């Protein structure tokens, strides 16, 4: 959970050349407001080409696709119900239960395959919430400045003094360990890095000539924010969205580990949380779901790094 913030903190301080690349296409924005979207296709394609050249990024993307595929095709691949008791508790891996059974005698492989669905859905949806809140706050703050900025910065500062995992834990305890509560709680506590990043991008872009030109051409604030500034601020936001998925997956694990998982939905975190007391008797029941979380977060962060390198050429040589 914790590592991630770090990456998000570092990312904004490193000047992003991505915006400048995108700005090359920007003169079009002054004449026709609809154009930046069309023009943006070319830098995006260039970034994709660049991304495909990074072996680790491609490896991450393949891992991620595989994990998603398994989660989608799960019931077809391994129809065993992950919540159903199929044998004796703590049965070690053998041909009947390939990865053994857990403390209740449930199939660990079924848990892995079906649990990925819940864990990755929580990760994706929570990251989406994080980015929506973070980008909205950061965009308003950076675009308008003045008292709106001061107010929103104060609010962000307030959220930053509460350790995200502990805050999420309190929220889930108070409002009940359901998958929706968990997802919303994770999204609601981890938006500040995205807000900081977006704010910095908006402040940097706000005074550039093509934005001023758009404004002079009569573009309203809403149009400027959504159609002119935001598309140019997107590359670092996409990177931070990718990383946010990793954070959310780790958070789901951490919350479940503390006993705040949804007991009615199998997830990787829940498997670890429920079996952790028996780790010395049944290593498989904890090791495999942990490895699954590890692989998912690794895949997501490799993809994030790959995108970052692709849209941020200055840092590539590192």
């Amino acid at each position: 959970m914790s590592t991630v913030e770090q990456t998000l903190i570092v990312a904004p301080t490193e000047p992003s050349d991505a915006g400048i690349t995108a700005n090359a296409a920007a003169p079009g924005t002054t004449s026709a407001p609809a154009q930046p979207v069309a023009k943006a296709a070319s830098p995006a394609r260039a970034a994709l080409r660049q991304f495909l050249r990074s072996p680790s990024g491609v490896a991450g993307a393949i891992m991620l696709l595989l994990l998603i595929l398994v989660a989608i095709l799960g019931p077809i691949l391994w129809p065993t119900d992950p919540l159903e008791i199929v044998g004796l508790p703590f049965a070690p891996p053998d041909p009947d239960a390939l990865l053994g059974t857990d403390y209740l005698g449930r199939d660990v492989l079924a848990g892995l395959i079906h649990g990925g669905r819940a864990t990755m859905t929580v990760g994706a949806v929570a990251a989406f919430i994080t980015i929506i809140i973070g980008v909205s706050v950061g965009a308003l703050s950076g675009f308008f400045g003045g008292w709106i900025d001061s107010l929103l910065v104060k609010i962000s500062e307030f959220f930053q003094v509460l350790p995200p995992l502990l805050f999420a834990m309190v929220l889930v305890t108070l409002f009940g360990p359901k998958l929706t509560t968990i997802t919303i709680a994770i999204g609601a506590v981890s938006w500040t890095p995205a807000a900081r990043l977006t704010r910095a991008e908006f402040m940097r872009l706000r005074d550039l000539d093509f934005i001023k030109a758009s404004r002079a051409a009569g573009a309203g604030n809403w149009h400027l924010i959504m159609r002119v500034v935001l598309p140019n601020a997107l590359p670092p936001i996409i990177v931070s969205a990718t990383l946010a998925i990793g954070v959310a997956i780790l958070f789901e694990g951490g919350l479940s580990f503390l006993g705040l998982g949804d007991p009615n939905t199998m997830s990787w975190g829940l498997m670890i949380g429920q079996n952790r007391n028996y780790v010395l008797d049944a290593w498989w029941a904890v090791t495999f779901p942990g490895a699954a979380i590890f692989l998912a977060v690794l895949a997501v962060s490799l993809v994030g790094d790959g995108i970052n390198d692709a849209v941020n050429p200055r840092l590539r040589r590192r």
Partner: protein
Amino acid sequence: MTLLTHLFGRLANAAMLLLAVLVLNFCLIHAAPGDPVQVIAGEMGGASAEVIAALRAKYGLDHSVLQQLVTYLRNVLLGDFGYSYYFNQPVLGLIAQRLPATLYLAFASVVVAVVIGTLLGVVSARRPNGLLSHIVTVLSLAGYAAPIFWTGLLLLLLFGRVWPVLPVSGMADVVHPKAGLAYVLDVMTHLILPATTLALVFVAQYSRLARVNMIDVLSADYVRTARAKGLPERVVIFKHALRNALIPIVTVVGLQFGNLFAGAVLVETVYSWPGMGRLVFDSILRRDYPTLMAVLFFSAVIVIAANIVTDIVYRLIDPRIRGGAR
């Protein structure tokens, strides 16, 4: 602005933030489903109508919400964070008992993480494409992606089952209690696994950060000048380059203190370390709201304190800021 006025401003801001945390706590408890008194009564194992009425009066629940907020704030200012019915004692006492063990663990991890992380970063920065550099990159990725409770459980498995050379549970040997120096050593042996587990995540980050900073700093003009003067490489690295590369690390250590604290909660749960982590775990299990809210409040206190300390250290080690501030 002198350091002192600056500090005063920070403290005033801190007070405002903590007040806001208390208001948030209050709102959360009120927004949560269920009547708080019923919850408390439930924790007591059921209560008579008189007791419930007494509790209502005690927490001022028969008053308006605004009045309740004022009562709550006044109680907290007087040091009354409520009463934990599960532990059967005032929450403040509970926190005071558990906090030292957690801080102990957190500080040990920070020291390990900063020292090892920086060294790895420095060494790998000298040859950005060397083998060690690649190892550091892989390690920092792995440290980032591995859930901390999972690495903890794996280490527990390794040292509890496969190679039992280290204690994997608790803070001291309770079967054969030690005294004096032997006790200190005992606690330190018990600390090795939790502190290492917690440090791993941060070693991963700091080595990555130190590496990037060192690569930047090593290409700076003043480092070239130092080399041109014929200074030994060791002096160039540790005196000229490292000092400058450390500044961003100090900032991040401060910013990360909240995450460190949250990580400690998870690690303590793995190794039964008798700090805040166990307290959090038990209070979640028992729905002990007063304790949980107090933990959230004190974690905010710790984060704010860490930020202020970082700010001061930052000003002390970076002469540019010190000069500018006066």
